[in-house]
């Protein structure tokens, strides 16, 4: 399709006061040779938008350059038919509001932005989606309360479910519980675990296909088209599913690893799971293992393994509630029984404070903060628990018939679960302590493996109510992934993006950088190392594009060439003009809006700076740096998100990769007799807009100190 550009310049909101708009028109019309070029005092008004629409209809304009405000505002005002490409030139926030008005440098800045915008509009096209036949089936792995809830909720929404459970029966841990925590107000009374009803609902649901005693042999393909091989009783069964919920749950921590508590050594020291078994077997009567004697005194030791840097550094969230629950088993079993609970902090958040309060009021339950120093066995197999740092004001010893260790939850991610046929590994990448959780507070389902979501205790330690909520959320995301894939659209965080990377294979050297660096394991490779892209696994960050030394990976509307051409369109003044040029490649989610807010606050920063938004710093190809330097640009700054343990990059490693690539670039620069300091990577959060002038000034000072780019005159 032939490109027909239209350039529309708004002079409202101080743009006209700050800049010579006619000069901008001259740039577009005379220099860039764009015949359709109009200015308007309020482009966002009905009249202004009408002008553009008229040109689209009457003149066949299919690429629109709107030179006005930031693309973050008036998005829908300047949205036209999907076939029309719209490029926004940010003259308001990034020029008029953040630079000296009627100034030569400000005008040069605006001229350059016009050139870059027109260049981009010339090169970029509206994306055509990658659409395949999507299987609207959700695979749920794990048949505990979480997995069953996910399955039921997905089925209820009208989707097919394949549920795979390792054990011969459904129900998971809940089947072993004697009672469960109160699920509804007033959050005081224990309830029957009532798991059988859920199991039968799953079994009788025509949309849920259940495989028990089954495990996943392999999952091949990509979201929407996963070929799942299930092994059941030695037989392999193949199913096609579109997305996956991982609900494999948890295991109790091995209390034997915690020294001095006598687990595995003294018969009457048990863990909290065994306590449920005792309650179930005794139908509520609590008898101690060594001699089946009725328990008259019992000590619960909290945080066994949990909150301990040598074992599980995290809190298992449920143990306080579980011990309070089990304390009431003992009290119901014997009204004269004494129950001691030794905790570090009593953690019963939210409305469960009521449950704590209720149990606390029981005359036979004794609670204290304290550190359990050890458990010793007495000749009659009873136990003595020594406790330090109590609320009583001194160390105490408690004699008890039995000791229950409130052991923590270990996520069940240690064995092979998914067996993904992905080049980057078979399982969900683990974040910390074996949890495959999202690293994001704002997006707890932001997974590193597209369309595969963890839920329940494998996701984070949680009580069953929270697990059910999580299960429903994960089911939602799994279904949503199917619907987005059906439209060929990306899932979060670029939800709805129809572009996807296209590989120009003829030039591929099989260097494997893209397959190694993709944060989402989207690209497989064959034996020769040739990449095999899987668009439905892709999150459209462009890290592969940034990685590729041969520049063969591009999106319709974002490519190495597009950005290269944009930066090459910057007019670099001669050395003697003493107008250095700085190129900023800014993360479009955080750094770019930060510049917008600086503009909104009328914060002035140096006008020698030119900003190009990038999808992620990870998409920055080294070629851009080379091109910019050879163009005579004096300094280049990459501004992106924080990286490291608490990384803030929504594409996991984008800013980290950029940093690493720039480190590698330093050597090359030195060989070219260019100072490595000309290229810098900076972390900037969206809220740190106040830092912008300082960062820019510092960098400019550095660059000025280095002197002009020696390649300027070439």
């Amino acid at each position: 399709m032939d490109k027909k550009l239209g350039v529309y310049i708004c002079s409202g909101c101080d743009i006209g006061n700050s800049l010579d708009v006619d000069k901008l028109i001259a740039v577009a019309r005379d220099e860039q040779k764009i015949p359709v070029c109009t200015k308007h005092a309020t482009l966002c008004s009905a009249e202004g938008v009408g002008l553009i629409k008229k040109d689209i209809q009457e003149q066949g304009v299919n690429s629109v350059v709107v030179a006005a405000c930031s693309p973050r505002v008036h998005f829908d005002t300047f949205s036209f038919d999907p076939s029309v490409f719209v490029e926004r030139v940010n003259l308001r926030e990034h020029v008029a509001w953040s630079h000296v008005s009627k100034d030569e440098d400000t005008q040069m800045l605006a001229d350059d932005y016009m050139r870059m915008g027109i260049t981009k509009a010339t090169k970029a096209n509206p994306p055509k989606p990658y659409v395949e036949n999507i299987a609207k089936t959700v695979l749920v792995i794990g048949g505990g309360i979480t997995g069953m809830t996910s399955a039921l909720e997905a089925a209820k929404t009208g989707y097919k479910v394949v549920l795979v459970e390792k054990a011969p029966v459904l129900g998971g841990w809940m089947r072993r519980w004697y009672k469960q925590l109160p699920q509804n107000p007033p959050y005081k009374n224990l309830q029957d675990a009532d798991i059988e009803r859920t199991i039968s609902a799953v079994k009788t649901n025509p949309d849920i296909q259940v495989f028990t005693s089954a495990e996943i042999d392999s999952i091949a393909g990509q979201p929407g088209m996963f070929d799942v091989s299930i092994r059941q009783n030695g037989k392999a069964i193949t199913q096609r599913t579109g997305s996956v919920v991982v609900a494999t749950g948890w295991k109790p921590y091995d209390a034997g690893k915690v020294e001095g508590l006598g687990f595995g050594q003294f018969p009457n020291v048990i863990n909290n799971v065994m306590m449920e078994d005792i309650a179930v077997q005794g139908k509520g009567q609590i008898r101690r293992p060594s001699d089946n004697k009725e328990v008259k005194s019992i000590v619960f030791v909290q945080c066994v393994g949990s909150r301990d840097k040598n074992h599980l550094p995290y809190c298992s969230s449920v143990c306080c509630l579980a011990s309070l629950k089990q304390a009431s088993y003992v009290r119901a079993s014997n009204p004269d029984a004494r129950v001691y609970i030794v905790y570090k902090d009593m953690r019963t958040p939210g409305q469960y404070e009521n449950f704590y309060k209720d149990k606390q009021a029981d005359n036979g339950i004794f609670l204290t903060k304290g550190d359990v120093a050890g458990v010793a066995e007495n000749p009659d197999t009873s136990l003595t628990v020594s406790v330090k740092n109590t609320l009583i004001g001194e160390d105490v010893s408690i004699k008890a018939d039995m000791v229950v260790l409130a052991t923590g939850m270990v996520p069940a991610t240690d064995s092979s679960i998914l067996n993904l046929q992905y080049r980057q590994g078979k399982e969900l990448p683990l974040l910390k302590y074996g949890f495959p959780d999202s690293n994001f507070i704002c997006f707890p389902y932001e997974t590193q493996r597209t369309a595969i979501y963890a839920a329940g205790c494998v996701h984070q330690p949680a009580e069953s109510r929270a697990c059910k909520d999580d299960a429903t959320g994960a089911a939602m995301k799994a279904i949503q992934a199917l619907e987005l894939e059906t439209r060929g659209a990306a899932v979060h965080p670029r939800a709805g993006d129809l572009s996807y990377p296209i590989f120009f294979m003829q030039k591929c050297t099989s260097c494997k950088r893209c397959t190694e660096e993709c944060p989402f394991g989207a690209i497989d490779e064959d034996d020769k190392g040739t990449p095999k892209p899987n668009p439905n696994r892709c999150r459209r960050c462009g890290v592969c594009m940034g990685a590729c030394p041969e520049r063969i990976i591009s999106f319709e509307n974002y490519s190495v060439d597009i950005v290269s051409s944009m930066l090459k369109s910057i007019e670099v003044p001669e050395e003697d003009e003493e107008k250095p040029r700085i190129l900023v490649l800014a993360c479009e989610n955080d750094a770019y809006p930060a510049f917008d807010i600086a503009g909104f606050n009328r914060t002035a920063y140096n006008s020698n700076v030119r900003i190009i938004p990038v999808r992620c710093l990870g998409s920055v190809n080294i070629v851009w740096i080379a091109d910019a330097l050879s163009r005579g640009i004096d300094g280049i700054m990459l501004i992106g998100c924080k990286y490291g343990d608490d990384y803030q990059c929504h594409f996991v490693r984008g800013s980290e990769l950029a940093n690493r690539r720039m480190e590698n670039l330093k050597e090359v620069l030195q060989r070219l007799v260019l100072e490595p300091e000309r290229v810098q990577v900076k972390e900037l959060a969206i809220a740190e807009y106040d830092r912008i002038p300082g960062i820019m000034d510092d960098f400019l000072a550095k660059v000025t100190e280095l002197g002009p780019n020696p390649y300027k005159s070439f």
Partner: protein
Amino acid sequence: MAMTNDNKSVCVIGGGISGMTTAIEAAEIGYEVYLIEQSPSLGGRVAQLNQYFPKLCPPQCGIEINYKRIRINPKVRYFTLAEVERVSGEPGNFTVTLRLNPKYVNEKCTACNKCVEVCPVERSSSFNYGMSQTKAIYLPHEMAFPMKYVIDGTVCQKDQCAKCVAACPYGAIDLSMQPKKLDINVNSVVLATGWSPYDAAKIDNLKYGIYKNIIRNVEMERLAAPNGPTHGKIVRPSDNKEIKKIAFVQCAGSRDENHLAYCSSICCLASMKQATYVRSQYPDADIYIFYIDIRATGRFEDFFTKVQADNKITFIKGKVAKVLEDSQTNDITVVAEDILSGKKIYTTVDMAVLATGMVPNGLTAAMPSDIVYDEFGFAVSDLQTPGIYATGCAKKPADVAGCIQDATGTALRAIQTRVGV
């Protein structure tokens, strides 16, 4: 005026993080969503935060992504400064009656700020919990969504003044704007009405509102935020003095039958987070956190471990139950029993921060059947009329990630509701 739908639609009441999430998640599946927010901007309480725990990242990053998701998704229609008056009908066919309160600024607003320059009237900024002033015409904050100015009708002198009308180059100001009614027809309704900070003045022994240098945690967020009243500089209210010593008072109202009998779940972590704010601005400041139980569940424990390891931050088990003020210096002395040593301690600080809890916001609108609240005022989602769901902090006190998980699940429940189901 009435809006209808293609029988696949959800009305979400509340445009905070929970409501936005439910709305966007449902819309990205393909459902029509109406998002109703009573204030002039989406974003809710999280937009007023400086950082999230435990990552200490700015909430604006995630909010920006969500704004973008809404911006590019025509399935989400949002109404700000809108209230729900009534919900009637049945699952799959609810009519939600909205009252669209006048903004006095129409769609032509470009956020150019000319109006603010001429407006002579000031109002207390609710965004900054009254710690700063805005003009009567204002933008809620620099990341407001929609990016439109709005006039506070309770203080604006309207036609008596009308300076803004003359100043606006775009004809965006309409001082004669009246409230409008709007009926929308939807399959299901989600209550994401969120929470309010507890009125700490009710805790009479903690002297909030009496001693100047006693503030609440929500105000501390504003003090630390770059777009707050002090541009992110944490100084004490009485004399803008820098902080050398500061105390955090946990369970200010929460876990207290005289106030909020439940645990607000987030305050321990919020105070630890705020301790890190102080720490990064004042490396030599001494920080004291007085608590009953530190509730850092799950992997939040890591954050507790990290904060605890800081030798300038001291945790003291014991609730602050008395505060004193030095009338000369306005310094605050907090009194607690250090339970583990069994002795009372008096800690004199420049400022004390009360970790006040969350009070659920109910909904006053008439509903097809009464909303079931628990004894604390949280809506009980499982007990509602089918087709009406509660989510986020309207349902239970929770951290941001917890709310979003819940809101995502609620989106699924909401789209399950069809006519006759």
